[in-house]
């Protein structure tokens, strides 16, 4: 069951990512990213992170991507023209990306004995459900970082307003 879920939604995420890579129009790339995020939400759920699955759908594909799509439509961004990009990006970037991928795969596959298998559902520990665990951690041990992030969000809102304001 979990293997089927993983294969189905992993393939969907991978397909969305490849579609993001090969689409020329920004709005198509943004919608492909929504597909990736939704399938990642299902994978989070299958890994026992129900709160994060909900937050992924609400925050990422609900709020952040809507912001992206607003800006794309506001700026009327058309198909990107094919230009000769920087030569260094092609010469160093692709072998570099492939090398990072091969290195990571090598490490993960050679250590797969130490990395265990995962069972479906929220079995992190002793019967507490996921949201209870996350909130207990956030509001006790991590209370200060949690409050600081609210200041961060406030500063980001102010910065966005100042940056996007029309110059007088």
């Amino acid at each position, binding site marked *: 069951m*979990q*293997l089927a879920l*993983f294969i189905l939604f992993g393939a969907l995420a*991978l397909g969305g*990512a490849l579609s*993001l*890579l090969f689409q020329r129009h*920004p709005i198509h*790339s*943004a919608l492909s*990213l929504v597909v990736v*995020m939704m399938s*990642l939400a299902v*994978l*989070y759920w299958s*890994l026992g*992170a129900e709160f*994060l699955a909900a937050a*992924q759908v609400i*925050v*990422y594909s609900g709020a*952040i991507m809507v*912001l992206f799509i607003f*800006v794309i439509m506001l*700026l009327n*961004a058309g198909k*990107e*023209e094919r230009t000769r*990009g920087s030569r260094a*990006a092609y010469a160093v*970037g*692709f072998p570099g*990306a492939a090398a*990072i*991928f091969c290195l*990571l*795969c090598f490490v993960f596959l050679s*250590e*797969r004995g130490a*990395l*265990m*298998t*995962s*069972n479906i559902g929220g079995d*992190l*520990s002793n019967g507490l459900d996921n949201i209870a*665990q*996350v909130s207990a951690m*956030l509001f006790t041990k991590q209370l200060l970082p949690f409050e600081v*992030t609210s200041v*961060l*969000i406030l500063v*980001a*809102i102010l*910065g*966005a*307003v100042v*940056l*996007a304001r*029309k110059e007088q």
Partner: protein
Amino acid sequence: MVPTAYYLILAAMLFSIGIAAFLIKRNVITIFISIELMLNAVNLTFVAFAHMWHQVSGQIFVFFVMVVAAAEAAVGLAIILSIFRTRQTLNVDEIDLMKS
């Protein structure tokens, strides 16, 4: 029963695709979108490891990454708006004020 390594390899694939998209895309919004893809790939490794170690800390990390990504998206898109307002273009090849 899925080996944790499979989740990690999926995350590595998504991250590499994000790097490639970051390098070949010429539209500044699409470059920003590929950064979000890389953040998502890293979040998947955090959740997979949190599940493997039966610890909730990895999920807390992902929560904070989401908060920072939201702040980053708001500020970044405001910067893109003001770039477009002054330069009338979204092509990164033409936004080269800081290139000597």
